[in-house]
């Protein structure tokens, strides 16, 4: 039986990797992957905490909802990235600077 803390470490590691990817990559798709990693870290936490709710399995259910939402968010994000590419002919977020004043 693995300990709850093991899940927490893995989750924290996943989150840190995700953050690192999001902050350092020069490709929007890769950043999206980083985001997915961070979401999965959160879902892992939900599942891990769900073990303590045997009756309703609400952790598992919440994780399912989060996965569906993540998938929807990815779909939207991919659409945005596609549009950004059409607009700027690049998907490097460092070069898409028009948000500044």
């Amino acid at each position, binding site marked *: 039986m693995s300990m709850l803390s093991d899940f927490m470490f893995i989750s924290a590691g996943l989150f840190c990797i995700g953050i690192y990817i*999001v*902050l350092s990559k020069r490709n929007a798709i890769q950043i999206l992957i980083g985001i997915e990693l961070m979401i999965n870290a959160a879902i892992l936490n939900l599942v891990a905490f769900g073990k303590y709710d045997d009756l309703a399995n609400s952790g598992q259910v919440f994780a399912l909802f989060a996965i569906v939402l993540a998938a929807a968010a990815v779909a939207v994000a991919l659409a945005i990235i596609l549009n950004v590419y059409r607009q700027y002919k690049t998907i490097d977020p460092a070069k*898409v*600077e028009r*948000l*500044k*004043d």
Partner: protein
Amino acid sequence: METVLTHSDISVIQLAVTAVVLPFVAFLLNLFIVPRQSKLSGVLSGLAIGASLALSVFVFFEVWNQPALHVQQIWFTVGSTQIRLGIWLNNLSVLMLLLVSAIALPVHVYSIAYMKGDNHYTRYFAYLSLFCFAMLALVVVDNLLLLYAFWEMVGFASYLLIGFWFTREKAIQANKKAFLMNRIGDVALLTGIMLVYTHYDTFDIVTLFGDHSLATAAATATATKSVTIAGLCFLAGAVAKSAQFPLHTWLPDAMEGPTSVSALIHAATMVAAGIFLLGRVYPLFNTEVLTVIAIVGCFTAFMAATIALTQTDLKRILAYSTISQLGYMMMAMGIGAYSSALFHLATHAFFKCLLFLAAGVIIHEMQHLKRKHRLHIDAQNINNMGGLRKIMPVTFITCCVAALALIGFPLTAGCLSKDGILIQGFAWAEGKGWAYSIIPIGAVLTSLLTAFYIGRLMFKVFFGESGLEGISADSEPEAHEENPLLYLPMILLALGSLFPLFSLNPLKFESAWIVKGFADMVNKTESSGELVPFLISALSVCVVLIAYGVYVRQKLQWLKFKGVLFNMSYNQWYIDTFYNGIIVRAVVGLSRAASWFDTYVIDGIVKLIAGTGLVLSRISAWIDRYIIDGIIHSITYFVKQAGNFIRGFQTGRVQGYLFTMLIIVLALYILKTFI
């Protein structure tokens, strides 16, 4: 007071008003409708005054020696005071109405010929009609305010006509002088009117000076000081208008106007307005004022006669003669010879107007000679004339009549009126002490001087040889009196200067109808000096003979043409010099002082205030620029710098934002952990 007027009376008044208004209509037409330079204007004005004359004659015969006609209506109301205006036709009004239109008609006719070819023909007749209107209105109105208005209006018309040839510097100077001199009198007259109003509370001449009037009652009762002062004010008004000493100097200068104007305005009618005024307000004067009037008149008469002795300008001689004769009338008013004064006014109007018209013809002739022979002479200088009787017989004869009338030679109108004044003068002085007899003696002296200067004028102009080299009557065969419009008026006036127009008895002034018409106003005096007129006539003839000896025969050389007296007379008693030297210089000095005060003191203060304001505003501008603006600028600078600083964070890089956020969150956690 309120009498019911019959229908015929009303029509008489309407006719009188028409007579007054007709020249005004001519004035308006000439001013606005008749084209410039049109021959029509002279005819129009002439017709208007002719119609006025006809109406005046009718009105005269209706009113003369009848009860006076008086209509009035309310003019305006101030508070509870009602000012009424109206027409008052009594003997004096209708006499003046007739006289003015009777003199004005020949002058109009004469002017048509005299002004022919002038550049401002229409304007001339417009002014002349304006004058006639004002003068006729002046004599009929019954209200002192209206009288004053028309009094000013005749003065204004006179001003316009003196300066008629406005391109001549001298004419402009002369009309300004006339205007200013008259202004002194006008102010006095206005003061007099106000005094009368304060005293009696009315402007109505009939109420004031008519029969059973307020003033009559007051003058006979207690002569208050204000009535005396009012009388003196009226006198001062008359003195300025009638060119009496000390305000007489405008009249000789006024001769710069056209000669026909001099004849009408400055000899016959306007200057007589002063005498008329005295006649109108006669009951106002008490004994003191009357004495002053007599003294002023007598002195003016004498002074002007002495000046006329030596002048060389034809028109100036006549001007001084006019002043002298007006002095006579003034003196007659003063000594109570009311009727004689007005009688002399009427006769003088005829012969003096005639003399001026003759002078106009003579001057025309002289200018003609001047042009023809290309001479550089003064056309009005009598020394250049001489022998003109052969060239201009009509002028000569009419002039002789006028001169004899001026001297007071028997059978002329002047004889009647002058004798009346002299006889009443002696009667007045009788039993009043020796000082009073100076006045009639002065009058006699004046009349002798008159005989001399008019004799001198006649002999220099018409007798002897021409004063010009190489021009004699024989070399000027053509007669220049061809225009009947010029000499017809002169003949008419000459007939008017003879006795039959005024009296059937040529030797007794009491039988003249004018004297009879005013008999009720005269203090009855026994004519003591029946011999006086004959004596004076004889003396006058002697004096004329002396003048003949001096100027024609040139035998009597005892008259010196230099010396103190000659210079005094020639320089017009230095009165003009005195006015220029003392009064004008004082006024100019005062103006200079005022100007200096204005420039340096008032302007200095103003400039000081302005300078202070300037300095204050500079300071406030500095404060505004460096302190107020500085604060605002520093605030904006700070905001701008802050903005710029914060702007730096906006890199637009999503990952940068995320990184920053991460660091801040971590920092918060770390801080939370440790604190």
